[in-house]
């Protein structure tokens, strides 16, 4: 038993790939390879061999591979590296001693000369990186404005009744970003209403003014939170979907196919998506407002012991029509932003899986940034106007 193991070890040791340099007078050398040259089991480093050859200052190099028992591309790589190093120093290499297959593979690898692309994978210096970033940002702004302009042109075509898109597509998108979104919008706005009421209840109970929870929830939902939460949900749900879909279509050249047929992708793809989202956002927001108020009522009635009539009467008195209209108006604008961001990022997406992922991410980020910025702008304007 023990002897069998010893034999095995000896065999493995004998099969290890080795390379030795045999010097020939006056200035030649033979590389002697032996063993099994399988790259998966590790290979000798060519660097030491090359160093030894350099030191000897050889002018002629030959190979002897008669003792190689098996080989794969590991041997080819090794020989190529040695050849690359020594031929740079005007050494004549005689490849006759190599196995036929190795010689032919090397010939194949050398058949198409290396393309000098000037690309090294090194990171450019920091100044160049800042410059590249600046140029990229400037281009992105131009492209964004371009897109905005083009979508206005498409809208103009729609007004004149000349926009080319399929009504069935429009209905499909409406279904996708309207009714199909009700579930998530319900959940989010119900919980938000609930949370608002909880927070308010704790504070207002200190003054014995629990009834004003109804005011807090109603005004916050209709004026601000209903719209912005719906918009954020839609940017994650629908804006990202737009970007991914258009990006993949771009990858498959489907958008090019439309363009070559003289069908404007802006009208055919972007317009239905924008229209659908602009139409659905205010409706979803109204729905979110109601569900949010319902969520508040659950706390008000269930926890604070207010009667349902009392709570809803208080809510009715608290919400002015202007609050409601402000919320709806803002949500229409939010719809435009979510649709624009999704479609823009999708249309300008690169043609690869990674680029489509990037487009979807970027659509959500762009949309949310602009949503918050515009909500702030609205707040300032409305404050100045005294609403």
């Amino acid at each position, binding site marked *: 038993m023990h002897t069998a193991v010893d034999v095995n070890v000896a065999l493995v040791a004998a099969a290890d790939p080795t390379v030795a340099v045999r010097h020939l007078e006056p200035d030649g050398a033979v590389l002697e390879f032996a063993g099994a040259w399988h*790259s998966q089991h590790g290979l000798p480093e060519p660097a030491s061999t090359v160093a030894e050859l350099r030191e000897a200052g050889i002018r002629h190099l030959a190979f002897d591979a008669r003792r190689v028992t098996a080989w794969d591309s590991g041997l080819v790589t090794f020989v190529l590296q040695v050849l690359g190093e020594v031929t740079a120093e005007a050494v004549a290499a005689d490849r006759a001693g190599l196995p036929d297959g190795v010689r032919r593979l090397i010939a194949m690898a050398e058949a198409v000369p290396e393309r000098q692309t000037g690309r090294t*994978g090194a990171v450019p210096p920091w100044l160049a990186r800042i410059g590249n970033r600046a140029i990229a940002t400037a281009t992105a702004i131009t492209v964004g404005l371009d897109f905005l302009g083009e979508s206005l042109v498409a809208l103009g075509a729609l007004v004149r009744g000349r926009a080319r898109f399929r009504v069935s597509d429009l209905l499909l998108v409406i279904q996708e970003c309207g009714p199909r979104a009700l579930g998530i919008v319900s959940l989010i706005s119900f919980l938000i209403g609930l949370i608002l009421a909880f927070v308010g209840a704790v504070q207002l109970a200190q003054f014995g003014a629990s009834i004003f929870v109804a005011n807090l929830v109603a005004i916050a939902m209709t004026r601000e939170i209903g719209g912005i939460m719906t918009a954020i949900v839609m940017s994650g749900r629908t804006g990202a979907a737009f970007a991914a879909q258009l990006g993949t279509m771009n990858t498959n050249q489907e958008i090019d196919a439309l363009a070559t047929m003289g069908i404007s992708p802006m009208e055919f793809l972007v317009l239905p998506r924008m229209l659908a989202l602009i139409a659905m956002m205010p409706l979803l927001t109204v729905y979110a407002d109601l569900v949010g108020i319902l969520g508040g009522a659950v706390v008000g009635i269930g926890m604070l012991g207010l009667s349902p009539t009392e709570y809803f009467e208080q809510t009715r008195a608290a919400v002015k029509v202007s609050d409601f209209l402000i919320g709806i108006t803002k949500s229409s604008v939010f719809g435009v932003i979510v649709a624009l961001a999704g479609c823009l990022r999708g249309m300008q997406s690169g043609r690869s899986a990674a680029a489509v992922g990037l487009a979807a991410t970027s659509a959500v980020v762009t949309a949310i940034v602009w949503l918050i910025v515009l909500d702030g702008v609205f707040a300032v304007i409305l404050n100045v106007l005294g609403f």
Partner: protein
Amino acid sequence: MAYGSFVIQHDLDFVVERGEVFVIMGGSGSGKSTLLNHMVGLKTPARGDVVYDGESFWRATSESQERLRRHFGVSFQSGALWSSMTLAENVGLPLQTFTQLPSRQIREIVSLKLALVGLAGYEEFYPSEVSGGMLKRAGVARAMALDPDILFFDEPSAGLDPISSRRLDDLILELRDSLGATMVVVTHELPSIFAIADNAVFLDGETRTMIAVGNPKTLRDECPNPVVRTFLRRGETDSAARGMTS
């Protein structure tokens, strides 16, 4: 082989010998690529099995399947390179994952593989920056990264210029000769079929089964089935072919 209840091909039975170039041919939609997907373990056959060296693939445990797959290299129709990695990283990933080689040696092997498919110097390019034909060749380089025992090619020469296509055929033959690899090639390019195939199977989309096995040159001249002869003569019928030669 079937998608749901839709049978693509039935009653397939053939043997690929070690060290031969085996071509799967047939018209478009006859199920060539589907057959390849079954052979490489991507799709489970509705009935039947694929056997490697007497070892069943589809009845094996998932560990044995993993081990068998280690011996495969697959080159896909449109390259299927991972788009977030450079060509060098694409080819290097299997080496990094399955060998203990230091990264410098991996880099050298990657350069060799890319040079073999005529892409020396394109190491740092991303898949989106090179042409379709180059993608395809890089896919071939990735398939042979680990010097697999069996290499599968799905339409290797479709979309390549004649010179690259010819070089790829030479490479297939060379890898077979020097490394002793077995090649399974799906193709319907006649010049390529005649140049490389030792053996071939012909899938017929009409009858949904294989209707011929053998060396394509022999099949062209002697196959009893007229469909196969017509295919291998680019649609020319027997009489026209006779007219040309006489």
